[in-house]
């Protein structure tokens, strides 16, 4: 990590970049926060470890409007989001200096906390850390394997390659050890009643905090239609239970074909709703109906849902 800090310090000092978007040390063992560092001196608080799960690409929407270049630390999966934002003209590539940071999967603190209350320190979570992490709590210490504490999304890792970068720091690892669409298939296999019950159970927990939307790099609208008084979609609570489901379904439609499957929605949901399932179902269907497509892989590629082509079948025709 010191190597990364040194490199960032050099970039700031020689004027290559005017600021750095990275993670700042938290006040606990596991809560670093996304941060914009503006001085070399402030980088002393920079941290990069297993808890730096946040996808920083969305912060570049605002940062790329600022004077000068911004260095941004992106993990392999974050670079897909960045590419998608380029495609949608939401970030200016030239104003970004992308440090592709290595990744060996990110940790799910909720998994660690299960049975480990009163955590005082966690060690071994750095990129070059051990296969086991050591958890110290006021109720006792424990070792668990890094792999067992991974975020669910890391088990379907899209790969260790950065899709876009100016330089790469650190080794990455493809942590995929599960079938990407296995969860979706499990739901597809349910009867309609079971599906309905499953989603009702999950979505009834929704508190409409909008964290999923606000963290989502595809939800980059200046003004979300759900916040816009111009439309009657604006709701902060669910008058009827129909709406709590509609919010997430409409959101899934809005990001369809643009969602890179970064998994931030599920990571931030305070109620642990597996929101990524909606998006992943869409991805699976798009793959099936339009051919394999990974949003954010190539910003120049045609997108199956939002690019008109003359090969598109006219309505009412066979095919």
């Amino acid at each position, binding site marked *: 990590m010191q190597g990364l800090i040194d490199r960032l310090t050099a970039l700031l000092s020689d004027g290559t970049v005017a600021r750095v978007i990275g993670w700042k040390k938290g006040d606990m063992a596991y809560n670093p926060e996304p941060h914009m560092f503006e001085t070399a001196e402030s980088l002393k608080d920079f941290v990069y470890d297993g808890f730096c799960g946040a996808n920083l690409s969305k912060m570049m929407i605002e940062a790329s409007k600022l004077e000068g270049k911004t260095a941004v630390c992106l993990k392999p999966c974050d670079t897909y989001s960045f590419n998608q934002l380029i*495609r*949608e*003209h*939401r970030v200016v590539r030239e104003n970004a200096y992308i440090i592709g940071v290595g990744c060996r999967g990110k940790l799910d603190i909720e998994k660690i906390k299960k049975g480990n209350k009163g955590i005082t320190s966690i060690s071994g979570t750095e990129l070059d850390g051990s296969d086991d992490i050591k958890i110290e709590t006021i109720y006792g210490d424990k070792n668990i394997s890094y792999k067992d504490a991974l975020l669910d999304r890391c088990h379907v890792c899209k790969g260790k390659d950065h899709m876009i970068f100016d330089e790469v720091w650190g080794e990455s690892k493809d942590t995929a050890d599960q079938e990407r669409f296995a969860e979706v298939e499990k739901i597809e296999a349910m009867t309609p009643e079971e599906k309905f019950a499953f989603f009702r159970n999950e979505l009834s927990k929704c508190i409409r905090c909008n964290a999923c939307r606000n963290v989502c790099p595809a939800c*980059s*609208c*200046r*003004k*979300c*239609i759900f916040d*816009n008084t*111009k*439309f*009657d979609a604006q709701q902060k609570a669910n008058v009827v239970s129909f709406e709590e489901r509609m919010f997430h379904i409409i959101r899934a439609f*809005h*990001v369809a074909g643009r969602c890179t499957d970064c998994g931030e929605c599920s990571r931030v949901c305070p109620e642990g709703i597996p929101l990524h399932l909606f998006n992943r179902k869409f991805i699976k269907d798009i793959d099936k109906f339009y051919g394999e497509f990974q949003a954010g892989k190539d910003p120049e590629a045609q*997108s199956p849902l*939002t*690019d*008109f082509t*003359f090969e598109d*079948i*006219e309505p009412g*025709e*066979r*095919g």
Partner: protein
Amino acid sequence: MQRIGVFVCHCGTNIAATVDVKKVVELVRFEPGVVFADDYMYMCSEAGQEKIIAAIKEHDLTGLVICSCSPRMHEKTFRACAEKAGLNPYMVEVANIREQCSWIHKDREEATEKAVILARAAIAKVNLNTPLQEGESPVTKRALIIGGGIAGIQTALDIADAGYEVDIVEREPSIGGRMSQFDKTFPTLDCASCILTPKMVEVNQHPNITLYTYSEVEGVSGYVGNFDVKIRKKARSVDMSACTGCGECQAKCPLGKMGKIPSEFDRGLRTRPAIYMPFAQAVPAVPVIDRENCTYFKTGKCGVCAKICPSKAVNYEQEDEIVTVKYGAIVVATGFDIINLDKFGEYAYNESPDVITSIELERLMNASGPTGGHLERMSDHKQPKDIVFIQCVGSRCDDEKGKPYCSKVCCMYTAKHAMLIKDHWPDTNITVFYIDVRTPGKNFDEFYRRAVEQYHVNYVKGQVGKVIPQPDGSLLVQGVDLLDNKQIMKKTDMVVLAAAVEPNKGVRKIATMLTASIDNNDFLTEAHAKLRPVESPTAGIFLSGMAQGPKDIPETVSQAGAAAVKVVGLLAKDKLKTNPCTAKCDPMFCNGCSTCANVCPYGAITYEDQQVRGPGVNETRRVAVVNNALCQGCGACTSACPSGAMDLQGFSNRQITTEVDSICR
């Protein structure tokens, strides 16, 4: 809130027999905004319209809802009526209580309830309507015809005769198209070139017509009244102004004698030199050098044509030239070809030279054709004594290898071929295998009956399963006679296949450039199959000839005329009214993400950096801008826009959700 008048039409008994019109009036009277409601026997009639106008004035109405037939029928009528009374025409909504209600319901109560619901939705929408103003755009008084076959020629002549300038772009070295390949035409049996050549000459000499032969349309931008078209004039390697068309070069071209280059015009039944005119009557009568095959272009050696050309017209240095021309209207007359028969191996087309297509037969019977008009087998140059015609090869075909449609012309030209052959060689035995014989057309059935009754052509209802070339040079035809319900095994000398027609391969590219829609078979789609058959849904694009669907020559010529009239009607206008129901971007909410531009089929959306001011916002940012003249109001952008910044005027998101809400209420 609007002051809305609701007018419910009986449409005689069309509506009133199923919908309780009086009850609809009573129920909608209490909808928000409604201040007046009435019914009448025929709302679209003079008297009905007077009623509307009177009510607008008396009740100070600001919006109208007409519950009547489909808006396709009378929306224009009622809008004009509102305008007469001083109301903006876009403050009128039509609730379709006929096609979508009275005609499809039997139960009076149900139909009445639905009529009320439809009226409510329209009322809810009118409450949110705002007056819209039509814009204006100028018209370039010049038309472009893509394709120089009989369809293009006729359209061009009609437009040019009306006094407007017309350009024809033809891909081949000469105009004339398919018709120039034909021998005789049905049902009159007059000679195709005798009636076509004068038209070709007329085109060439018409002061209002410019020909771009051996040229292709490369790009189209703009919109109705104002198209910019890029035309690539491919290098002929022959100076058009110097060439006298003497033909020396063709005669002396060494490749001509080697017989290696099949003639496209003669469907490969003979060969041509590398410098050539496709046929004798070609217009313009200027040869081109086929650079792919020309020895000079391949090796830098030869140069015979340049040396012998008396007028020094051959120019190897010539380059493709691109011109950009402005047009007000574009006619697509790209014509047809016959399908590739590779998938129909059972007919042995690729195996035996004596299995030919009808178009090849046309060339074989043509006096200027490869055999000088003498019908002979290509294998042994013997005159066939027995000929089998197979109909519907690839037409009316359910599976993937053929086409689902009827090619329309085959029944007639086969009868023509049979009679022509019998005329020349009466003892030829002719059998025609057919599914149905289709002869709807003036004098068509009489023509067909002549073949059967006078010429004793043997028509067999049934399909041919296989054609097997025999060692003795004959062909064995295995078929079935459905009427007699028996297998047929028949030896014959020649098999003629009535291969299905299909749109010219180039039409897909052209349609893409023009944003004109095509159907699954690549035929161009009409704006309305019945009421607007020669117009494309894209404004300013017109359809002529086979590009729109199978048709024979008289039909092609009449459609060409119809397209010409539509073009003239457009060019006669100095300004065009633009549809105000176009998309509009609210820069406050626009993300600048380009999604709308990516889904727009008309290229109507561009992006520009704009100063955006609003509550809490004052910055320059990338926002979508809609070109109102290009926008067709299809709404693709409004549904693709994630933030709801794009709205279709007259059909805004709010208006539509309000309609839905009021229906679901």
